């Protein structure tokens, strides 16, 4: 691993170098909430002054750039006799993601496992993922962040460059040749002992700021044991089955497919839309039978998939602890509280 240190003023220069020739996606402020707190979103940016690198968390993950909420899997040209299927992966250029937090990069790494690392890799995702140049940035834990419990507060791979604020300067971790070459465009230096010290200090200070936690010890087994637990009914009664939690989740990828004929009757399309396992008809089949008719069963399924099933398959959870779902849920259903209640740890 290669480390560099550079003055904070150099970052604008790096941004300008990168943006002169490429499309950049980064955190920007799009308004304020009721408490006058800024609302952030990932969006295309061309001006360094618009990017908010000290952002808390975006309401929505960066998902729309690699798992769009709606996307055509194929289009069909309909002819007199028969049809022609045309497949496009819906991307034509690389994107630079400037300022992703560790949790969101970890979310990508988890998605990589299911969507690229398994049989039938998904080209729509892969094509976009392979065209992502990622500049990660450190963050300040918010009251709802429990990434540290999920092992997602630091990230080991899946990015090109990661920046940590060490006071006057940034401490840069460089993982790709491309990133190394970009850094040649600005003034950098090799870190010295004192920089290592500053880095470690910044990390340990961050660690002290976490207030939300989830106890994941033996969680797969406990979830297995508590499959029939009454607590699921309790949470199910609050849940509105709106699907917001999946929408805002950086690791939720489930979907539905629909085909439609275009108005000219000469073409048709096969469209994939992200879905949510909390929506009522998620597991309903033709004829009306629903394998998960009740809210609590669907809510439970979402937790089981993330905290048990995925762990069994990949030895890690499908939740990075970003807290977005809890913050967006109108019913106030939050992961740390749900897991604590299953473990009978509520205070």
């Amino acid at each position, binding site marked *: 691993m290669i480390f560099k240190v550079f003055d904070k003023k150099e970052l604008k220069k790096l941004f300008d170098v990168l943006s002169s020739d490429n499309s950049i996606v980064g955190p920007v402020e799009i308004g304020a909430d009721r408490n006058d707190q800024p609302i952030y979103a990932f969006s295309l940016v061309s001006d360094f002054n618009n990017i908010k690198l000290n952002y808390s968390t975006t309401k929505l993950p960066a998902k729309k750039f690699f798992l769009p909420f709606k996307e055509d899997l194929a289009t069909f040209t309909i002819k007199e006799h028969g049809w022609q299927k045309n497949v496009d992966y819906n991307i034509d250029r690389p994107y630079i993601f400037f300022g992703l937090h560790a949790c969101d990069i970890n979310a990508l790494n988890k998605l990589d496992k299911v969507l690229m690392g398994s049989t039938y890799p998904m080209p729509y995702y892969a094509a976009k993922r392979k065209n992502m140049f990622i500049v990660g940035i450190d963050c300040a834990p918010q009251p709802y962040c429990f990434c540290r419990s999920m092992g997602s507060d630091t990230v080991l791979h899946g990015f090109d460059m990661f920046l940590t604020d060490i006071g006057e300067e940034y401490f840069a971790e460089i993982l790709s040749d491309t990133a190394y070459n970009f850094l040649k465009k600005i003034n950098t230096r090799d870190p010295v002992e004192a920089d290592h010290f500053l880095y470690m200090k910044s990390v340990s200070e961050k660690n002290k700021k976490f207030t939300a936690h989830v106890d994941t010890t033996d969680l797969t087994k406990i979830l297995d044991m508590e499959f029939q637990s009454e607590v699921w009914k309790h949470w199910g009664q609050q849940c509105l089955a709106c699907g917001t939690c999946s929408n805002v989740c950086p690791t939720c990828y489930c979907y539905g*497919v629909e085909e439609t004929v275009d108005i000219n009757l000469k073409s048709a*399309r096969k469209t994939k839309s992200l879905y949510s396992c909390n929506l009522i008809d998620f597991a309903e089949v033709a004829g009306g039978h629903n394998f*998960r008719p009740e809210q609590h069963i669907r809510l439970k399924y979402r937790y089981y998939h993330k905290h048990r099933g995925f762990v069994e398959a990949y030895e890690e959870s499908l939740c990075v602890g970003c807290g977005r779902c809890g913050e967006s849920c109108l019913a106030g259903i939050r992961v740390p509280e749900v897991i604590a209640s299953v473990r009978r740890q509520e205070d």
Partner: protein
Amino acid sequence: MDTHLKFTDIKTEGRQKSHRRDDFEAFEFTYKSEITNIHQLTEMENLYRIQILDPEERKRFTFQPGQFLMLELPGIGEAPFSISSPPSRHGDVELCIRKAGNLTNFLAKISRGTHVGIRGPFGTNFPMEKMHSQNIFLIAGGLGLAPLRSAIAYAQDNRSRFNNVEIIYGAKDPSQLLFTYQYDTWQADDINLNIIVEKTDPSWKGPVGLITKILEEIFSKKDDDFFKNTYAIVCGPPVMFKFVCNMLGQKDIPMQKMFVSLERRMHCGMGKCCRCNVGSTYTCLKGPVFDYWSVMNLKEAI
């Protein structure tokens, strides 16, 4: 140095893999096919004969009994169906389809010659080779006969490799019996056929009742030795296979020698959309055929 990032085009990246399943192109790959014939079996079910158009691709298309494919009608929809024809016929498949919703009702209205797309084959299969030199019970309830018919055809094609082959089939009433025109050929290949209907009509001369009733009769005629060397495939609604598998269990047939096929909502067939999950198991990848032991261990399976 150039600061322009290079676009990686995975379409031309040329991942030269021999295994289609690992290929990016495999994801939306469709075999262009034609519906060569439509045979009305009952009021609700039609048998569609579908042929992959390209002769080379047709030959290369291989599957095992119990596997399914995704049938696509551009602009209308795509859905999973069990392959109901003999594996020896490759990409000239038959699907027995019940009118149930959007796509299936539309299919009932089209005529032969229509071009459709098929993807697959997907999922696990009945391990026919493991069952060689054993007795087999092929037990179907209702539409469950559709996937079972492929296993029956395998047994016919390889008749010398099995001992006793016993079909036990239950339907609601005589008008709903599927593949009636084939019963003679099955019996001609020394396959015992036992049919029972829940509700009778004047034309019906056979037994009336639930499938468990006819099973009891058959069981009473077999000795312990028979059950020691017996495999079972059970296709039908969950209530039915639960009862049937319990009965088979009482005869000491190990759960690992009983196979069932699960049905769940599916939108991809490739372990991506998550719609088919049972607990956290993908029915489309780890199933649809499971041994009964695995089913017992799946949360929310039955």
